[in-house]
Every structure is written in structure tokens, then in C-alpha cells.
């Protein structure tokens, strides 16, 4: 492996003992890279002087496939990008196509979509929390997190038959009506979850090992986040009170009260606190939403054959990992001319190099964990 990392800035202040720099490969088969991510680390002893990501191992050409499918046929493919938050991907895609068609989902569909998407946000954050804690050495939270995630997946399964790649929504609304007892299940989960989240807090928040491994690790300032395009919890942990659900509400988010948690230092600990609070807020949104799910149809009139007028649309949502955008160009036929997916994980991963510099090798694991990437979405 040649030393392909070129960064003159780090060359100058790097060699403490005049030792040669070492390039070490991490991944693509490495348990803490959360998939097939390969990182070339430039090391000076235990210090990291730079990191270069090698990605694409999971590239399936999703955007190319989109050009050869009808709008409806492509919908299941988006579930397979961020496969721990398939519902959010589907929401973004369906809403983008609806905007392209100048159509809108009926109110009942929008509320049910909001509930499922917020449950998905909790499930996605639980996967993040469990694996992130596991990477750092805390084994217990993983079992707790997956226990609670299981309850959410059961709701998904009862709703649409699938647990992971749900294809829960349809362009124009929903295919399935909420099952009998849907509200009860969501309420039971949300009521219970308050106590569960306290378990994680007890395990981690004040834990001195946890604090030692996460505080001042992988710091990003607000300006750096914006310059690098890092969004979602990364941006909020750096102190930017910004969330697309508030800034440009979609689905039914304008009807609910919730807070945008922010951090102050932009370090791994703050991102942990932000995501924990986001789970609490998602729970509150779900509780508000099941109070009053409007009656009415669940599928708007969009027709069976979708032929959007020639033109283009960009629509983005606040996915669990950040801004998930769809740029769709129609040429007036039943198949999209171009579908561009703006994946939050891909853009956020770009910040890795900046975040790991100066830290120890062991911190790289913590920083990859705190980025909360899913390689299915990075590589598409």
C-alpha cells in the first residue's frame, strides 16, 4: 500500500520523534466500520495525521436503476439505501414525486406517515446508540437498544408486513390503513420508552469512561459543519438550531410541538446528547400524533400510471442522519429521466478526515460511530 495521502499541512507539525509515518488500513472488513468502509489512516505512532475513505464496495447503481423503472417501481429501491431507516427514505421519495406531480397526500396519510417516520427515527438512533456504545466498549446498551427497536419493528411488521425494508408508503399516500390497535401499540411503546431511555442515560450519560472516550473527541465547529455540508445531529451538536422539520415542514410536522436539541461543543458527547434528546422528542411527536389521527382517505388521486409533466423537483427531508434530498427530473414519461439522491451519510462521512486528525487510533472508532453512517446509503 503506497502512501497516497498527500497533505502538506500535516507533514510540517507531525513527526514528534522524527519517526516515519505509517499508513494503516482499517476495513473494509472491520467490525467497527459499520459495513464495508475502508479507511486509510496516516499515523504517527498512535496519533492520526489524516484519514482517507475508500468507499463504493456496496455501490449498486441505484440512480441508474431509477432511470429504467417507473416511478412506482423505483420506490422499493430507496428502502435499500439507508436500510436502518427505510421508512424515512420512502417518505422523502414519495413526497418528492408527489411534488413533481403537483399532488398531495391526504391528511390522514400524512399523520400516519409522520408517526411511522418518527418511530423509524427512534429505531435508527437505537441502532446508532447500541453499536456506538459497543464500539467504545460498553456492551450492555446494545441489548437494551435492540430490545426496544424490536418493539418498533413489530409495529412496522403489523402495519405492512415487513420489518426492515418496509416500503410502507405509496406515491400519493398509503396503501395500507392503520391496523386495529395501531394507536394502542404506538402509545404502549411510547409510554414504555420513557423508562427505557432512562436506562441508557443511567448507563452512559454520567459514566466516566463514556465521558472520557467521547468528550472533546471529533470536534466540529458550526462553520466547519456548514462548509462540509454535515447535517442532522452533527450540525445540531455544533450549536446550530436547525431542523428541516421546523425550517421547511413536510408531512404533518407543522401540527406538533417539539424542540430542536442543540449541543455546544460539537464533540462526540454532544452528538450523543443531541440524539438522545431527539429520541425523546420523536416520542413526544408520536404521542401527540396518535391523539388525533384525522379520518378520511389514505390515498390521494394520483392515477395508476404516473406521468409527471416535464420538469424537475428537489425535495429534502430531515432523515435520522441528516438532510436526505431527492432531485428528480421528468421528461414527461412514466420513468424518471434522472433521480439524484443526496444521501446524508455520504456527505457527513466526508468530515471524517477533519474529525480524526490529532486523535488516537482508538478514537477513530468512536468518531466513525458518532458519524452514524450506513454504507448502503454512502455507496448507493
Amino acid at each position: 500500500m503506497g502512501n497516497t495521502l498527500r497533505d502538506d499541512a500535516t507533514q510540517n507539525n507531525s513527526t514528534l520523534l522524527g519517526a516515519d509515518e505509517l499508513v494503516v488500513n482499517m476495513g473494509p472488513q472491520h467490525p467497527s466500520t459499520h459495513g464495508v468502509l475502508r479507511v486509510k489512516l496516516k499515523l504517527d505512532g498512535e496519533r492520526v495525521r489524516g484519514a482517507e475513505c475508500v468507499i463504493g464496495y456496496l455501490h449498486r447503481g441505484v440512480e441508474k436503476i431509477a432511470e429504467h423503472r417507473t416511478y412506482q417501481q423505483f420506490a422499493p429501491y430507496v428502502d435499500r439505501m439507508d436500510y436502518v431507516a427505510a421508512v424515512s427514505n420512502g417518505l422523502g421519495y414519495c413526497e418528492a414525486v408527489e411534488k413533481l406531480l403537483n399532488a398531495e397526500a391526504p391528511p390522514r396519510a400524512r399523520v400516519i406517515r409522520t408517526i411511522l417516520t418518527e418511530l423509524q427515527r427512534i429505531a435508527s438512533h437505537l441502532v446508532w446508540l447500541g453499536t456506538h456504545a459497543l464500539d467504545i466498549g460498553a456492551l450492555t446498551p446494545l441489548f437494551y437498544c435492540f430490545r426496544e427497536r424490536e418493539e418498533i419493528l413489530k409495529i412496522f411488521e403489523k402495519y405492512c408486513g415487513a420489518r426492515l425494508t418496509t416500503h410502507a408508503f405509496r406515491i400519493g399516500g398509503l396503501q395500507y390503513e392503520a391496523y386495529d390497535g395501531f394507536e394502542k401499540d404506538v402509545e404502549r411503546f411510547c409510554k414504555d420508552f420513557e423508562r427505557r431511555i432512562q436506562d441508557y442515560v443511567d448507563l452512559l450519560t454520567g459514566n466516566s469512561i463514556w465521558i472520557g472516550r467521547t468528550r472533546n473527541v471529533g470536534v466540529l465547529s458550526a462553520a466547519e459543519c456548514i462548509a462540509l455540508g454535515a447535517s442532522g445531529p452533527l450540525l445540531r451538536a455544533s450549536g446550530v438550531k436547525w431542523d428541516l422539520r421546523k425550517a421547511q415542514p413536510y408531512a404533518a410536522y407543522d401540527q406538533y410541538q417539539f424542540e430542536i436539541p442543540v449541543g455546544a461543543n460539537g464533540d462526540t458527547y454532544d452528538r450523543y446528547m443531541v440524539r438522545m434528546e431527539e429520541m425523546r422528542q420523536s416520542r413526544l411527536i408520536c404521542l401527540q400524533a396518535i391523539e388525533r389521527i384525522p379520518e378520511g382517505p389514505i390515498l390521494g388521486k394520483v392515477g395508476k400510471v404516473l406521468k409527471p409533466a416535464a420538469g424537475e423537483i428537489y425535495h429534502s427531508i430531515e432523515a435520522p442522519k441528516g438532510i436526505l434530498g431527492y432531485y428528480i427530473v421528468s421528461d414527461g414519461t412514466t420513468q424518471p429521466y434522472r433521480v439524484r439522491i443526496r444521501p446524508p451519510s455520504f456527505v457527513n462521512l466526508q468530515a471524517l478526515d477533519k474529525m480524526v486528525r490529532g486523535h488516537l487510533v482508538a478514537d477513530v472508532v468512536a468518531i466513525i460511530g458518532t458519524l452514524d453512517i450506513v454504507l448502503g446509503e454512502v455507496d448507493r
Partner: protein
Amino acid sequence: MPDESKAPQSPEGSKPEAPGASPAPTAPGAAKPAPPPPKAPPPLPIPLNNDLSARYRERFGAAILDALEDRRQPYLVIDSLQLSDIARYSRDEEKFDLLEDFTAVDWPRREKRFDLIAILYSFPHNTRLRLKIPVTEGERPASLTEIWPTANWLEREIFDMFGIVFAGHPDLKRILLPDEWQGHPLRKDYDILRQDTAWVRENLGIESGQ
């Protein structure tokens, strides 16, 4: 600005005259339901005349080729030679501080084959603006990495998928496909079943990845 009007109108228009390297292409879209007779499309997009477009026009004159609005989303069609200046102005004066996305669209029948699409977001104003930059094949548009560092990977992806080379990019190489791969898959003349068979044979030891 000859845009959607000159686009291939048929979905099969995206199928190329199978290049030599590709296996016999079958039609993946063959199961497409028979579409009803096309209705007259609504007149889209419409010209954009607001303060924003006026400021851009005043500042850059003829470099703003067109200002349009499609489904209530504004976009400017700009001259690729002025891309850097317009981008810098957008970030510093108009406060579009986030380059939310940067991508490309291939229109093979057009004289300027590619559209670069920059989606800008402004945190202070909570608004978006799209810049559409038509470029010819072989043209080297200026890299935006100096202005928005996030453009680094996004431009590498455009290079990987469309073969557009950005002048001044610090490390322009493929990002999703292997470095030695031949061809740029999101071009419309790259068939969906096509692959770099030589690379697959050499590196994976199989005849086909499909």
C-alpha cells in the same frame, strides 16, 4: 435555453446503440404498462422575475442565461465560465452558505451535453436556489471546492458517474467505482447492463457480475 424540450422524449431514448463492450442488451423496461395518450403538459417552467433574479442579472448580466421557476422552485441557468464568481457571490452576498447538493444530468442530444446542478441553501433566509450550469463534453468547469469544501466528494462523484473533469479540484479521482474502471455509468449512452468486463474478469475472476 433549450432544456427539457430537446430531451429524448421516449423512456427508451435512454437506451444507447449498444457499445462494443456490452453484452446483448435486453430491455429492462419492457414490462412498462401501456401509457394513455399524452395530455398537453402544463407550460413549465415559467420565467422567474423577483428581486433575487434581478440582483443576479444586474451583477452578472449576460452570464445569467435564464432565470426560471419550476413548481415554485427557482433556478438560474448560468454560464459555466462565470461559475466561480457566481458561486462566490451566492455564498458571500446572497448568504447561500450551504451547498446542499451538486450533481449532473446528461442530455446527449443537446449541444451542451451536461447540466451541472448546484442546489444551494441559505440558513439566514431559509431559501433554496438551484444553479444550472450547461457544459459541453470535454469542458473543464471550475471546481467549487474552494468555496464549499463539501463539493470535494460531490465533484468526485460527478467525475465518476459522468466523466466531467473539474479544473482546480485537489484530488479528482473516482469515488464509488474502482479507479481503473472504464466508462461513466450515469451517461445516457452507458447501457444499464453494461460493465467493464475486462476489469471484472481481471479483478473478480468471473466473466460477468450479473
